[in-house]
């Protein structure tokens, strides 16, 4: 066993040096034990703020314990801005210069980098759900498109596009089934595709074609949890949890290119220069995405 770990570690060290190429298939290149107690210093140590720290896109946030407000701080812990929402946050999406917040009351707030509300979207004025609530949200890195999973009876996959100073609803797909918990939505790095899990299957929006569709219902519909991260220019890596089983895979341009079972304890994805890493409690599985 020890030899196997050593060999795997050696293999990982060697392969991890290889650069990422535009890829279509995935290979497990190694697994290693997770080292507990990272030596990295917390950027929040200097912050005189109590709450739940979070970092995304090199931005640092402290979320209030009631999940109804947050503060952005600089890396040194000094204050940038603070906001209080009317109802609890149910979904979030943070880019380098924008952030989008979905709330329990069904409203969506888009904030700029100084915490100003630049758009307040109210889907209830555009689609007819019996109850409003935002279950998932994603904003493209340039802020041009916002995707949201909204409402109950029925539920909608919504797409808003930037229109002058505001946003305009450009696509609404009514769903047959509905989720009641938060779902992850994401944009590809080039901002051309948005995906997210719905109770009907995987929702995909093609920005260029201005079309949304539901794909792979057999794999993604029903009771499941999906984590998804953009990789490369137009791809996504995902981690799908269905019951006690876990699957990972690759989606490019809305098409499922790989789907494979992984360790049932895997809980998170991390995108790396040469591929991605799936982390469980004790192990990290590193994958290289290789060219076809």
């Amino acid at each position: 066993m020890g030899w196997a770990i050593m060999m795997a570690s050696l293999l990982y060290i060697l392969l991890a040096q290889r650069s990422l190429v535009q890829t279509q298939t995935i290979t497990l290149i190694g697994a290693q034990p997770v080292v507990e107690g990272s030596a990295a210093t917390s950027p929040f140590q200097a912050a005189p703020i109590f709450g739940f720290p979070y970092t995304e896109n090199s931005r640092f946030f402290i979320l209030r314990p009631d999940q109804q407000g947050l503060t952005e701080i600089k890396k040194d812990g000094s204050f940038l801005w603070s906001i209080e929402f009317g109802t609890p946050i149910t979904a979030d999406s943070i880019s380098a210069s924008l952030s989008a917040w979905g709330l329990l009351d069904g409203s969506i707030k888009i904030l700029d980098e100084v915490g100003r509300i630049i758009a307040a979207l109210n889907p209830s004025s555009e689609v007819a759900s019996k109850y409003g609530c935002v279950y998932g949200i994603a904003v493209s890195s340039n802020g041009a498109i916002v995707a949201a999973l909204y409402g109950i009876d029925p539920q909608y996959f919504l797409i808003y596009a930037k229109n002058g100073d505001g946003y305009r609803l450009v696509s609404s797909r009514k769903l047959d089934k509905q989720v009641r918990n938060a779902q992850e939505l994401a944009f590809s790095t080039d901002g051309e595709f948005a995906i997210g899990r719905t109770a009907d299957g995987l929702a995909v929006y093609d920005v260029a074609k201005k079309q949304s569709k539901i794909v792979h219902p057999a794999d993604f519909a029903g009771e499941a949890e999906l984590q998804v991260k953009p990789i490369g220019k137009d791809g996504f890596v995902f981690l799908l949890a269905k019951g006690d089983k876990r699957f990972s895979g690759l989606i490019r341009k809305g098409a499922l290119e790989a789907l494979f079972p992984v360790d049932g304890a895997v809980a998170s994805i991390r995108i790396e220069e040469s591929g991605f890493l799936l982390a469980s409690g004790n192990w990290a599985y590193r994958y290289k995405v290789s060219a076809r």
Partner: protein
Amino acid sequence: MKRAISAIEKRKALPWRKVLRGIALSILLSLCGGAPVFAQESGAPINLVDSDTIVRFGFPVFLDYMALESIGSPQNGNFADLARSSGFDDSAGGKYLETGVILQGIGLNIPSAGDGELLFIQNAQALSGGMPAAAGNFLAIAHRDGFISLYSAKDFIPSSASKTEIRKGDSIGIAARAPGSENANYLFRLYDGKSRLWANPALFIQGFNDSVSPKITQIALLGEKETYIAENRKNVTQMIPQGSYLLAVSVVDPRYRNESISGLFRLKAVLNGQIIADKKLDAARVTENGLSFMEMQAPSSNSVDKAGRLLLGKQFLPSGKHTLEVFAYDYAGNEAKFTWQFSAR
């Protein structure tokens, strides 16, 4: 639309309770520009009338989600304590106020406050975008007339999302046993989506068994440079410079034996015989800038100072002798009064 609050209508109210109820309703009506607040045509969408298991009450109340045992302590059961202990303090925004009350479950079960449909379950460590699920696990039920009730508790395990139609009294999850009790305690919040208000659930509860008056623990005048704390020493008249001051008050609503805590409901300040502030804690209005408590500007950090005192507004104090009387009422009608005589020069 005819509206009423059956929970309150059913209450066998004492005369002074009726007065308070009238005040509460009139304030709620005025908050909505005359429009009714709690929508119902027959029966209440939310019905806490049968809640004989109230262990504490306050609107809002602080909840430390990571250590919910703290709600076992009576001192945490009211608005003022929330402000003191909310713990969220940043260099610009200060503390904040949170809506909610603490109720006792049925055993470890958390009961639904009314018929409705499951709206949202948070049962994960992170939000959909990766943010930490700071509020812990919680569940929201959509009721008719735009009400949403929210439930959370220490180690709360919400019921499965597969059951979406919920009846009043259904168990919507289980939670950890409260210290020294066989039951779980839980945070209950009530949002009126039509009126965009967080409502004080006290309006839906009858029969508070609360015989103890609130306690005014501190009155302070916050000047631009100095803060002056009220002292009632015999034969000593405090002197303060004339000028504009923010009136800040700390109040707790203590508990007596096994009684309920009905929670701080109203604060009134009278300066030299004239009412200068009369604030009710019946609802928090949702605005674009956050929550507005006691008709103060949102966000809620405008209603509380960094020391956790509730702010009742600004007042100019000219030179001369002054008498400031502060009254605090809990929801059961118990009154506390603090009189401060001082001079300004």
